[in-house]
């Protein structure tokens, strides 16, 4: 029940884009049309869902203070938390490389569309941010980490798809001032949706 609650909250209340503004670079660049946006959203969701549990396990059994006690009582004082940033990013980067190879082999069309942004998933702040939030909030089980990761990923997917849909309509039907076309209006759309999503802040399930 708690996990379900967390899952829903991660999608709407703690939305990665509209509440924390993480992962903006690829978000702005790839939200031109719904199809590509959806593809990247799936990739990010997938990455968050697998890296969060892995990083949770590493954090609990290797990195946090006293985590190495299972090796023997003399390790109880070891605190490796200063290494967490590097360990997290290494896990994320290797997972990204794996996903890149798989996508290149089995979905070349998607690969050429995503272009430089596939390697950039590794530095998508949403994914490292997810792991850092996990560490900060002291999640209690792998299931919790999994639910939060999936929730944040789906929230990101939802946000990028919604904004991509709005951008498609704006490009077709509205007369945006020439200098604001493309990127400029996307910033404003995102900002307005961010303000709208603030209304979810007080919600408790």
């Amino acid at each position, binding site marked *: 029940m708690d996990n379900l609650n967390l899952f829903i909250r991660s999608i709407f209340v703690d939305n990665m884009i509209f509440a924390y*503004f993480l992962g903006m*670079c690829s978000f702005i660049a790839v939200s031109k049309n719904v199809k590509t946006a959806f593809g990247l959203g799936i990739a990010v969701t997938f990455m968050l869902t697998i890296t969060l549990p892995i990083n949770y396990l590493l954090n609990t059994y290797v990195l946090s203070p006293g985590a190495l006690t299972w090796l023997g009582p003399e390790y109880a004082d070891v605190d490796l938390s200063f290494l967490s940033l590097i360990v997290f990013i290494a896990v994320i980067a290797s997972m990204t*490389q794996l996903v*890149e190879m798989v996508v290149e082999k089995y979905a070349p069309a998607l690969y050429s569309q995503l272009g430089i942004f596939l390697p*950039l998933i590794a530095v998508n702040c949403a994914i490292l941010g997810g792991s*850092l939030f996990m560490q900060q909030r002291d999640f209690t089980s792998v299931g919790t980490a999994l639910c939060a990761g999936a929730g944040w990923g789906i929230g990101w997917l939802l946000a990028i798809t919604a904004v991509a849909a709005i951008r498609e309509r704006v490009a077709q039907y509205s007369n945006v001032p020439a*200098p*604001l076309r493309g*990127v*400029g209006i996307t910033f404003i759309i995102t900002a307005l949706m961010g303000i709208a999503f603030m209304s979810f802040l007080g919600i408790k399930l």
Partner: protein
Amino acid sequence: MANKSVFFNPLSKDNPVLVQILGICSVLAVTAKLEPALVMGLSVIAVLAFSNVIISLIRNTIPTNIRIIVQLVVVAGLVVTVSQLLEAYAYDVSKQLSVFIGLIITNCILMGRLEAFAMANRPWPSFLDGVGNGLGYTIILVIVAFFRELLGSGTLFGYQVVPQCFYEAGYVNNGLMILPPMALITVACIIWVHRSLNKDLQDK
């Protein structure tokens, strides 16, 4: 000639934030006040210039399949160095910035420049490219922070700029400017001005 354009293009015509749209997250996060924005900009310049040089030096020995991991390790090492230096010599600011210095690792400008420039160019142009892009990023950071701090808190670098008599006459700080969405709108306004001046950058 080429070196000169490598250095000057990122300042305006090929600005990393306005044109390449990289590194937006930190623009939103650290620009509520001027001082952290400036320190953040300087840190990014340092990390970007040196990681560009290092990657450019070893670019021919990196296997393509694991290049991202190699790049991230180089960047992470430099970021840890910068954060240690800041803690030693500018403790107050480093405390304000703590999380965001760590998040330089995931600043897309770094990966973007490493992938697009340092992997294909010699060390000296790569160094210039790093400094140029870092400066372009810092300029935007400072402009956004200037407006947000002035309108949001009525201060610059922590000193009060809006005279007290304004407040007595009923002037109120715009609290909305402190929130992240307004940073997006500020950047959008800068893009608006920038693209009206550079017509060739406008989307059709």
